[in-house]
């Protein structure tokens, strides 16, 4: 028997369907939103509550060995944040890097229901699937990294775009990936030689290719395959003052990729806050002269529609920096005068120089950190098209995802910004325009940048990020009446309401109430399986067996994640990529 649930009288924010604060009913059946329920359907009255689609977070590091290294090397970061077990839920820790169970519960309590792990070393994918078993309540996706892999390099050097596309397709199928991640193209590889790259034409040790060739070839391959999510791009020079110039150069270089289909965007520039640091007029490219690049980058964004972005907002306080950008992480360690705990994690063949992990505290009184804080806010408050933006802290880099309510409060409330501008170093005022910006995000704009836009950016807008007929019944109900609550004037209420929903529904099932998770739902994993034509498929099997056999230290047949770990979780979407020439 099909069960119906009707959420009545909520004030709904569903920007994808043009609904901005209308009181309406939502009907749910079999985990989906349907047109209407029968008269005897179960009803929950949501009069005086705000209703939004479940939150979608396309960039949050919640899975993988890098997190474990962070947890393992810094147990102190979790010690004071216990997450107790209940009859229905498991225990854990909830500090900077929550443990797996707590990660799912905490996201649900905040109203988020879809989270993407944006840096998967494919060779370790089996471990990721095992971990997902212990991360409840979410729809999850994994983005394998391709930009420092010797296999990618081989195809790029041979100018073999079909081979590269086929390698990507093969990997997505073999490990259950959703899209393609590029991290410091060539730079992490160079780190295996103690080097880095910074310019588009820099040499990469042992190979006759450049960072430009790597990033454009991969974005071309992604377009060629027709992947729903554009290339997810962490540029070179991350975290270097003045890098706004090279970031724009790289985005310009990526214009060579022609978008296929309806979507205009071919690249997603991730954590722009770390990629768009400017310097004061006449200044040098160092931290002493750092200035916000937010406004300048907003101008670039307003003029160029081929990319989307997310904030990578720093939130002050302790964080754990972790990226697939090994040389950047080492430079952070050097900045600490060699005092910080620096971990490095090379991944065979795919990330030879390795990911890095360094605990880091963003200090409000640090001139550099204060300026860094202003950049993404200035950007978000200066751009026109919010449909190419989503909110993020690049968890746990800029701070844990638990700080999203704080980020929302900065965007929604000038009063809140003024309070913080007083607390942080004066450079925040002197080296950005943040203090002059009047704009305050509306609830509809928050709904765009935390639900609708990220779902579109991921190519999941059919079922995620909206509340129209056919959408997954992932719904966040907030315990305030949008008509009567002046959030901008009361930023503390933003923190209160966005930290804990009144109810969160995942696939039509109520998972939490007033922040208490009382239902343990298994997560699901969304993946993309590009179908190649027969010739290309045979070619890639043969070539990968040869390369992997030669370069890896484990057997080729042990590379794919066995179905036993996937079949009960995976929701594969098969796409037709047979047009890629063999």
């Amino acid at each position, binding site marked *: 028997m099909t069960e119906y649930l009707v959420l009545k009288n909520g004030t709904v924010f569903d920007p994808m369907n043009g609904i901005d604060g209308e009181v309406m009913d939502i009907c749910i059946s079999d985990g989906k939103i349907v047109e209407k329920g029968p008269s005897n359907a179960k009803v929950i009255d949501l009069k005086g509550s705000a209703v939004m689609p479940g939150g979608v977070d396309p960039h949050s590091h919640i899975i993988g060995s890098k997190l474990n290294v962070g947890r393992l090397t810094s147990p102190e970061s979790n010690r004071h944040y216990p997450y107790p077990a209940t009859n229905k839920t498991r225990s854990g820790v909830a500090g900077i890097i929550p443990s797996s169970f707590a990660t799912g519960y905490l996201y649900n309590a905040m109203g988020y229901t879809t989270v993407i792990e944006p840096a998967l070393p494919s060779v370790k994918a089996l471990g990721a699937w*095992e971990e997902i078993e212990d991360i409840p309540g979410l729809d999850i996706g994994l983005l394998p990294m391709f930009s420092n892999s010797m296999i990618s390099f081989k195809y790029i050097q041979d100018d073999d775009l079909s081979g590269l596309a086929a390698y990507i397709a093969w990997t997505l199928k073999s490990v259950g990936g959703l899209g393609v991640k590029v991290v410091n193209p060539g730079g992490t590889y160079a780190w295996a030689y103690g080097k880095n790259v910074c310019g588009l034409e820099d040499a990469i040790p042992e190979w006759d290719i450049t960072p430009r060739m790597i990033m454009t070839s991969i974005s071309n391959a992604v377009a060629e395959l027709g992947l729903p999510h554009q290339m997810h791009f962490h540029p070179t020079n991350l975290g270097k003052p003045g890098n706004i110039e090279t970031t724009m150069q790289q985005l310009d270089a990526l214009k060579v990729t022609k978008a296929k289909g309806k979507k205009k965007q071919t690249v997603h520039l991730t954590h722009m806050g770390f990629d768009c640091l400017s310097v004061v007029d006449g200044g040098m490219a160092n931290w002493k002269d750092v200035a916000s690049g937010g406004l300048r980058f907003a101008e670039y964004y307003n003029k160029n529609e081929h990319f989307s972005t997310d904030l990578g907002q720093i939130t002050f306080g302790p964080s754990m920096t972790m990226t697939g950008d090994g040389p950047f992480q080492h430079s952070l360690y050097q900045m600490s005068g060699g005092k910080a705990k620096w971990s490095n994690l090379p991944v065979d063949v795919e990330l030879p120089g390795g990911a890095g992990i360094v605990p880091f505290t963003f200090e409000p009184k640090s001139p550099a950190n204060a300026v860094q804080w202003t950049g993404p806010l200035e950007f978000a408050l200066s751009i026109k098209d919010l449909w190419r933006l989503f909110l993020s802290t690049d968890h746990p880099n800029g701070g844990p995802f638990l700080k999203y309510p704080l980020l929302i409060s900065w965007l929604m409330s000038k009063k809140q910004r003024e309070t913080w501008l007083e607390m942080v170093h004066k450079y925040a005022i002197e080296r950005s325009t943040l203090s002059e910006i009047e704009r305050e995000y509306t609830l509809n704009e928050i709904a765009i940048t935390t639900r609708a836009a990220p779902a579109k950016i991921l190519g999941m807008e059919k079922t995620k990020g909206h509340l129209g007929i056919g959408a997954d019944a992932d719904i966040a109900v907030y315990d305030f009446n949008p008509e009567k609550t002046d959030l901008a004037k009361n930023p503390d209420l933003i923190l209160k309401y966005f930290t804990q929903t009144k109810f969160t529904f995942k696939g039509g099932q109520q998972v939490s109430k007033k922040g208490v998770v009382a239902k343990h739902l298994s997560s699901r994993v969304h993946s993309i399986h590009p179908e190649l034509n027969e010739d290309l498929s045979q070619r890639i099997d043969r070539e990968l067996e040869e390369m992997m056999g030669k370069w890896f230290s484990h057997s080729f047949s042990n590379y794919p994640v066995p179905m036993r770990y996937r079949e009960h979780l995976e929701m594969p979407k098969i796409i037709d990529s047979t047009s890629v020439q063999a």
Partner: protein
Amino acid sequence: MTEDITIHKDVPCTFCGCLCDDIVVEVDGNHIIKNTNGCAISKERFLGHTENRCQQPTVDGKTTTLEKSIERAVKIIASSKRLLIYGLSSTENDAQREAYRLAELARAVVDNTTSVCHGPTILGAQESGEPTAGLAEVRNRSDLVIYWGANPAAAHPRHIPHYIRQPGEYIHDPKQDRKIWLVDIRATTTSRMADRFFRIEPGTDLDVLQTLRALIRGHKLDVEEVGGVNIVELEEIATAMKSAKYGVLFFGLGLTQSRGRHRNIDAAIRLIQDLNAYTKWNMLPMRGHYNVSGANKTSTWVTGYPYAVDFARGYPRYQPGEYTAVDMLARGEADALLNIAADPVAHFPRASVAHIKKIPVINIDPKINMTSTAAEVNIPAAIAGIECDGAATRMDGLPLYLRKVIEPPKGVIPDRDILRMIINSLKKEMKK
């Protein structure tokens, strides 16, 4: 008779942390008849998997049914106030995950064998971080490999022949282009294989490491020798380390469990970190049990902490020295022990073993071991990677899928299923 022979290829060997996954196992009916590619230990593990088995569950030394043994185990767990769950490093990840679930339910302490092997390595990393290595990377790139306080020729027999003395993409002649050095307190089988061997005085690892750090930073030291090694030779080592293209330090219990312990590791980590200002260096602990890396990994994602986790308050807390098995037992704190896939009676200090003998012990293991003799309840388990599948983690963090190549003895089930049975009955017991 050849019709019955099945050949399993690319099977990971579940003995040591190398987790070599190129083993070819031939099975005739329900007998393993051949292991190709495995080392001597691997061959023994596969071909001798039926030897010395615990055939049936026992309670108080008398054979019984699985159900009865579970019933007694649950009774012990339900009536204990301070249960210790220990072992887990020689079983697969799912069994470990069930053990944490049980620990949470029973508000127990759960610890793995890390606390008696590379625990100090983790403590060192908590001081300083850790630039770790990957085994294929070592094979493809490394021109200088140093083993320190490790004897892979005996403990990880294929570490050198399978991963190190092999050509890689940028190391064409592994004998010429890659040097293997050993630092240890005595000559070993490994020292005969190494290109150079440096014998240091026992207990001087920390001194030698700090000396190397100083020399690498360009300091002149006014001493003639450190740890029994001439300063000129130490200068030579420092120079060689600095001028290597891609160096790797593999270290064993000789470094973690000798005088200085986690301070040794801390110094080794800082040495490797210093070297990265000049060239590329990584390091890796030589993990012993095949899935001790997995035990750290699963424990960390589930509880936030790698070992020594206490659930007494209904949430995980971490405190090595307090919630580590040896210490809990030596203090007489644990009032019951659930041991899974380890042998504490054989390996723990006398005071800890003396306490084990005073408390009820539930022992889950495929084989009869020293702990079996002290156990009130013995439950036989299938051998992961031979008689049941699962996942495990290689010493460098690579996850691998373990195969079931043969049926377990009749009535014998995997660790994870035994633990699930215990959890389910314990839940019923707790509702009463």
